[in-house]
């Protein structure tokens, strides 16, 4: 897709920084999950802006045919909008982006009882597109290619056996002739890998194990044979920089949760870092080999997944335009890296963090507070953030207009012990019960944060009494859009956080919105459908979330009515 060039030039001049020229794409179209391959979730469209947004009205809606835990962000190709529902996906819809009229629908047979295999619900975050094909990752471990015009299935490849607890929930990453995907399973003893399939045939071109095997460098960062089922699954979305030809993915927590299995059960973990779990990976997409890595949480004991999306932005550092990567990690730290070299430029807590006092700039490692590391038979109390992290999967966005990152953050703490909370089939027995849902200091449970990535400071924030804000989108209209667990969909002033417009969608919103332009008209789209499984982890806090709105499954599309 061509970017909307005139607009871009305008804000490049006026803005403190710019989206990586190599990667930013979201102009009139939004053809990839993250808006562009840099995952900025930013659009250069500005017809809907701080002035006009108050007139925003529903243009049309589409019922997605499933309830609960909708996490999909639609993409636009030509004048067709592609959107998925939860449950498999139960449905992939191709609809007329002007009217919502369905052009085709793909409803795969999803094995009965599959919801037993996902740790965190039967979600799907959307599809990817390239060369007339729509690529869908499914809960049952398959990636399928569909004809973008007809929905006909062109090929189908099994990437992983879902009965191991490994399910695909995120859209694959398109690089050149490849479709690249990971899968979940960090809770079930998977050994993670990324699989690159040929777009034409579906055949696997390469596979990158995200835990080194015996004899490979890094294998000795695992105790005993724990590497075999050590997790490190790359279940969220990837980013790609075509100039550097680097593919970026984050990996999940190591497994099992109990760290004594994987190392010395101590903050002095020595070589037992458990590579490449909770790690940002830079990969050569031609070979599937790791170019550099940066581990955010070595020898994780908190379930601080490292999967959060990598946002690629070029900014001026010490007079030098520098290729950067932003990551708001679950562990509560905001990382700025040089995405060419992997060098750490800065790291600072973007939420309340008490398990580490900071990041050692020499080693890049967290400076741990030993009391807050859960161990076998040691329950660490009031650890902040909790295992949902300072930020979970819901995407942040970056606006080159303001130079700020908009983070849907969490403020929850936990009591945690270095052991397994899971039931085992046939034993039906809970070894440990943890308290995961403790409201963090300050009494709020989530916060939409506008973060300056270069000064590592909060510019403004909107706290919320309930957790689980939806993903964000920034636009050249000076706006930030996001939803919440009550079902409100809001447009904020990107400079102040002031709510300029809101609409009640009737069910909680987790998914990130998107926007597109057709025939000179700008639309904003968001999928509504409250999270189902997250509240279950959170005890009384979860009850508040469930009470906040019913389950749902609807795509809402908004427009400015013609006067």
């Amino acid at each position, binding site marked *: 897709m061509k970017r909307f060039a005139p607009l871009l030039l305008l804000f490049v001049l006026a803005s403190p920084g710019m989206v990586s020229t190599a990667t930013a794409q979201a102009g009139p179209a939004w053809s990839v999950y993250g808006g562009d391959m840099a995952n900025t979730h930013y659009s250069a469209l500005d017809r809907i802006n701080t002035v006009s947004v108050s007139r925003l009205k529903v243009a049309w809606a589409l019922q997605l045919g499933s309830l609960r835990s909708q996490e999909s962000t639609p993409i636009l190709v030509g004048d067709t909008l592609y959107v998925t529902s939860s449950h498999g996906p139960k449905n992939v819809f191709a609809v007329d982006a002007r009217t919502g009229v369905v052009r085709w629908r793909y409803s795969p047979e999803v094995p009965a*009882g599959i*919801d*037993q*295999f996902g740790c965190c619900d039967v979600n799907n975050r959307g599809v990817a597109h390239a060369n007339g094909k729509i690529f869908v990752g499914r809960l049952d471990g398959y990636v399928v290619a569909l004809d973008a015009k007809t929905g006909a299935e062109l090929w189908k490849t099994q990437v992983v056996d879902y009965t*191991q607890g490994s399910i695909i929930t995120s859209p694959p990453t398109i690089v050149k002739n490849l479709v690249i995907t990971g899968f979940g399973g960090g809770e079930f*003893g998977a050994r993670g890998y990324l699989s690159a399939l040929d777009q034409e045939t579906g055949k696997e071109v390469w596979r990158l194990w995200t835990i080194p095997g015996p004899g490979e460098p890094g294998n000795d960062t695992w*105790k*005993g*044979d*724990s590497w*075999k*089922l050590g997790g490190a699954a790359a279940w969220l979305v990837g980013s790609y920089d075509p100039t550097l030809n680097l593919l970026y993915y984050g990996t999940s927590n190591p*497994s*099992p*949760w*109990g760290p*004594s*299995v*994987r190392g010395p*059960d101590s903050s002095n973990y020595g070589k037992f870092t458990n590579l490449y779990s909770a790690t940002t990976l830079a990969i050569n997409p031609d070979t599937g080999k790791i170019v550099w890595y940066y581990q955010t949480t070595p020898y994780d004991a908190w379930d601080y997944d490292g999967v959060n999306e990598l946002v690629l932005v070029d900014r001026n550092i010490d007079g030098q335009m520098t290729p950067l990567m932003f990551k708001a990690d679950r562990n509560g730290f905001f990382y700025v890296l040089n995405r060419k070299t992997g060098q750490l430029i800065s790291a600072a807590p973007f939420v309340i963090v008490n398990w580490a006092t900071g990041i050692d700039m020499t080693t890049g490692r967290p400076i741990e507070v030993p009391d807050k590391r859960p161990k*076998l038979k040691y329950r660490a109390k009031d650890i902040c953030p909790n295992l949902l992290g300072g930020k979970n999967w819901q995407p942040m966005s970056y606006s080159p207009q303001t130079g700020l990152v908009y983070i849907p953050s969490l403020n929850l703490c936990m009591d945690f012990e*270095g*052991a*397994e909370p*899971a*039931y*085992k*089939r*046939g*034993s*039906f*027995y*809970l*070894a*440990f019960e943890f308290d995961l849902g403790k409201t963090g200091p300050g009494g709020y449970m989530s916060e939409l944060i506008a973060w300056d990535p270069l000064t590592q400071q909060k510019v403004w924030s909107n706290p919320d009494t309930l957790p689980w804000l939806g993903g964000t989108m920034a636009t050249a209209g000076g706006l930030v859009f996001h939803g919440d667990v009550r079902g409100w969909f809001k447009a904020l002033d990107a400079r102040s956080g002031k709510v300029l417009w809101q609409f009640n969608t009737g069910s909680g919103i987790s998914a990130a919105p998107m926007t597109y332009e057709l025939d000179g008209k700008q639309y904003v789209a968001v999928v509504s459908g409250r999270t189902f499984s997250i509240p*279950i982890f959170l005890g009384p806090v979860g009850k508040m979330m469930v009470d906040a709105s019913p389950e749902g499954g609807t795509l809402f599309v908004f427009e400015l009515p013609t006067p």
Partner: protein
Amino acid sequence: MVRRPVARLALLSALMLCLAMPWPAESVDTLRVCADPDNLPFSSSEGPERGLYVELAELVAARMGVRAEYFWWRSYFGKRTVRNTLLSDACDAYFGLPADAAFMGQSVTMTRPFLDMGYAVIGPKPLTLSSLDDLRGRRVAVSFGSYPQILLSSREGFELVTFRQPEEALQALGKGEVAAAFVWGPTAGYYNRTTLGGAYQIVPVAGPGLTWSAAVGVRKGKDELRAVIDRELAALQPDIVRLADKYGFPSGVPIPAESAPSSAAPPTVDTVATGRSLFNQHCAHCHAPNAMSPEQSRDLRRLRLRYGDQMRDVAVATITGGRPARGMPTWGDALGPEAIREIVTFLESVQN
């Protein structure tokens, strides 16, 4: 007393009930039971062997004069399974839930426990273990994420071989790839019986996180049904022992998981000391000095695990009223309420 898979009498409830218990009008003909279709030795939707829970449910239903009907659902996740089955009104009773009132909050009511189970070490005969330390230096198969994996990996000198499923660990044992497996006891026992020709020996292991008690869960408010099931379970106690034996559940004296049983750090609080003294005078001959009984069914350091928040109430009631049919005397008159409270306070200080 030789440890058998402990079939636990539901005596208290049985004694409190009248003999004829009316059966709720809406379910006159059937007892709807939720069970996993493919989870032997516990349950299976297809024969010839149906599993202990299914056979037990048949016996309970027969005594109730109704027919057992099954709703099959794979039980990969404890609470989710219960929500999707029992709490969705797909059945009336779930056999084999943890005997813990707090398990599903207020929504599920449990019967008294009917069976104790736990992890066990299985190895070629003769397998003589005095403690887990005897496994040092040998290849021991464990299942991923299980408490044995966590326990042994936190100690020096154990060579673990990890498998995703206990059956895979047992397969490796059968092939001689490991010296022993430390896995879920009933699974080991059943595999030994059906696949290994009974050639291996099984030693149960006792300790925190390694054992649990199974009960039957019913929905909140179904107190009549729970009472009926409690009564039938009590009457079926010999059958439960027989079924546990049939499916190869481990029996025998468990070895402790801790190499040196912690000598229950002497409490300093006065009432605790008084309680310990009273306990050692009146209770220790059956329950061991300082309550450190190696016999699991008499180990009162496990009361918290068994009864959770109800521990204190259960302990006071049981000491006061006794369990005559099981040989537990009635102490209410002999000791008086204050001494019993002090004993229970001591017991609280030594819980696992």
